[in-house]
């Protein structure tokens, strides 16, 4: 009963994110120049965001929808802006349905929802979706990036539902440990943040490309992206926040559990290999960003490479390799 509800909510989730994506895309495609023009006319607002501390200095934001137009600017009533606001509302519906999917799934199974690959992806993407919602509340100026966030969510959740779906079942004994909660929660939270972190990283590359005069296809998407400095800082913050959690989850809690469960703290299991690779690549990003002589775009490419390794670990390793982490019954 709960399981069916969860499966139905999954469909609602994907549809809501999909609709949000279409809304964002409509805003992109049909938006008038006014949006860009206005942004260009008030660089001080963008700078205030770029230099913003933990709390926005402007009037407290009530809701992303209301704040999307910005406190100083007149309320934008063009169709495109409405599409953007509708997209944010649909995104909120998606997050609610997504939360419902995970909660009902947990109720159906009577345990935490990361016992197999399907549940893992569902929960990790929920964390990503909530992180993005939090970013949106604090920095409404980033609304445009919602197109890419909802795209990533639709693809990941759709893939989870289609290739990784597993009926509700109890935990296998190998997962029956409190390290299960600690290790998987830490890995999932950091994966969720890394997964969202790729969006500002990509937009930074598009935006700097556009700013440098590139007018070919992917760079035209950067036209409406927020200021490069803001994107850069957001990317760094997300990665700097997720990296220690990943270190703890994958390289400390994981080995502690592996020692108790399999007798060795590290054994180069495919999942371990890719967790290590992701760690090394993200460490490379943090180093590259801290080095003045390395170009910021290079650092961003490293962050995107990190995202690719995360995807490899999430899907590739579970589906293509045989290993000790094969709890996913996808096939």
């Amino acid at each position: 009963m709960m399981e069916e509800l969860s499966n139905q909510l999954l469909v609602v989730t994907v549809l809501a994110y999909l609709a949000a994506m279409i809304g964002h895309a409509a805003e992109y495609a049909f938006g008038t120049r006014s949006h860009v023009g206005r942004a260009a006319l008030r660089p001080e607002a963008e700078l205030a965001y770029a230099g913003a501390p933990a709390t926005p200095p402007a009037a407290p934001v009530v809701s992303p929808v209301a704040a999307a137009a910005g406190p100083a600017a007149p309320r934008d009533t063009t169709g495109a802006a409405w599409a953007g606001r509708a997209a944010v509302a649909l995104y909120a519906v998606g997050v609610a349905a997504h939360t419902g999917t995970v909660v009902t799934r947990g109720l159906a199974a009577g345990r935490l929802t990361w016992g197999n690959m399907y549940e893992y992806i569902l929960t990790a993407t929920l964390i990503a979706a909530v992180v993005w919602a939090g970013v949106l509340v604090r920095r409404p100026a980033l609304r445009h990036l919602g197109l890419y966030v909802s795209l990533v969510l639709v693809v990941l959740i759709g893939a989870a539902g289609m290739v990784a779906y597993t009926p509700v079942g109890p935990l296998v004994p190998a997962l029956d440990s409190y390290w299960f909660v600690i290790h998987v929660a830490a890995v999932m939270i950091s994966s969720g943040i890394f997964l969202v972190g790729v969006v500002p990283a990509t937009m930074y590359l598009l935006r700097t490309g556009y700013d440098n005069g590139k007018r070919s296809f992917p760079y035209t998407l950067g036209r409406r992206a927020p200021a490069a400095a803001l994107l850069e800082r957001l990317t760094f913050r997300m990665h700097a926040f997720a990296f220690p959690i990943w270190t703890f989850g994958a390289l400390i809690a994981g080995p502690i559990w592996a020692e108790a469960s399999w007798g060795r703290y590290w054994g180069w299991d495919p999942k371990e290999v890719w967790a290590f690779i992701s760690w090394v690549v993200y460490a490379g990003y943090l180093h590259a960003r801290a080095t003045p002589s390395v170009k910021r775009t290079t650092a961003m490419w490293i962050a995107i490479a990190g995202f690719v390794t995360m995807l490899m670990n999430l899907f590739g390793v579970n589906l293509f390799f045989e290993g000790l982490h094969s709890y996913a019954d996808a096939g």
Partner: protein
Amino acid sequence: MTAVDERVEPAPAPPRRPNRLLASLRNGWRQLTSMRTALVLLFLLALAAIPGSLLPQRGVNRENVGEYYAAHPDLAPTLDRLGFFEVYASPWFSAIYLLLFTSLIGCVLPRLAEHVRALRSVPPDAPRNLARLPQHAAPAASDAAPADAAAAIARSLRGFRTRVREHADGSWTVGAEKGYAKETGNLLFHVALLAVLVGVGFGSWYGWHGNRLVVAGADKAFCNTLQQYDESGLGARVQPADLPPFCVQLDTFDATWTEDGQPTSFRADVTVESGGAAEQRSFSVNDPLRLDGASVYLLGNGYAPILRFTDRYGQQLTRVVPFLPTDSLQTAEGVAMFADVNVDPATGRQPADAQWAFEGLYMPTVRSQPPFTSSTYPGERDPAVMLFAYRGDLGLEVGNPASVYQLPRGQIDRGKLKPVGEGRLLRPGEAWQLADGSRIEFAGTRRWITVSVRANPAQSLLLVGSVAGLAGLMLSLAGRRRRVFFRVTPAGPAAAGGPAGVSLIEAGGLPRTDYPGFADEFDRLVAAARAERPE
């Protein structure tokens, strides 16, 4: 390896006659310890780790390497020579991480010295023009004398290292700095990485492991000696005699399953004997048996059918044969061979085709109808074994290496060992009367488990190292180095003979690392400094 935020290049040394060898060594060292090289090495490390997940690894699964050899006979030997089946022990992988760690040492040591100097030095004096700093607060009047105001400012800067200086022109300055923990954390992180590397190396020297299958029962106990393991590995500095003496006997093994056969719990009860004292212990998956000097981990489990062979002369031979599971419902395959049977008690000779072997399929819960090919539940609700008999010469005395889990295929191919009749399904207590007067009886089952016995004396060092590394990492990512300066000058009226004790306070701030919130903190600090009353 993180870049120093404001590295001041040392002044060029006075020209000396260059020693070319020394110069090139120095250059090479600088190249190696440069950030760019470290980034390239990090990238190479990530890249070099990939083949280890794509190709089978000896350290992970030896059998898979054999299968790969069989599937790619042309490619495998070349890959093997290049170390692709032992990527993480290969010269090229080792070269990358050793170079990386050398680069790390070369970067961390000078920074450590620099940081120690910074920790021991006092904050620098205020620059002449505070207005040029990223943050600046214009002079504002205070009703305290410059000396008192400066002391009060220094007091207000909690958590900062401060230095109050008096100048010849009557002005006072306060230099303050905070956030040394960032660099401390950074260095701690990198030193901890070195400790982890040392721990890994130490563990591979002094660690050891042995794997084996243990059947329940006092007659099947094992002791911790190398000969008793099916597979084992000793670190370079471990001798077989170093293994701690203890013996383990499996008493019972309990497993529970859901109705559709998913396991929910495993528990093994054992008797451990060491130093003459026997002790009842139990362990399970995720909860290993911690003994003095080693831990015992539960890896797998299964059933061992008890097969009792009675030959045509009435001699009985009983074998407890571990069958290896082939699916999650514990359908298991195994082989029982009876070579020393049907020996004529009168002559002491064995006829040519007197040996027997049985290939079997064990099902803890057999189907109610044929075909009896797989189990329907992993618990023993209706156990049965399907046996296929072979008669003839097993070929064991020739000295062929024989697996206890497989029939001697060569003998079958040569026609020396022939299958006899159809397979027969036996339930516990049932027997199968064979053509030559022998009989085979299925007498029940015992449980077996596979265990890994392991010791790694470096594990606590690894744990301490990685936790210290994490603490350092968080300090270095969250920390912010910044300086603030205050200049207190006697205000105009004092200089003009007006009321004494009125001064002007100007402030400047310099974030030394990326710190978006510095402007706010600076404003707060300046407000607090102005509010602080002189004592």
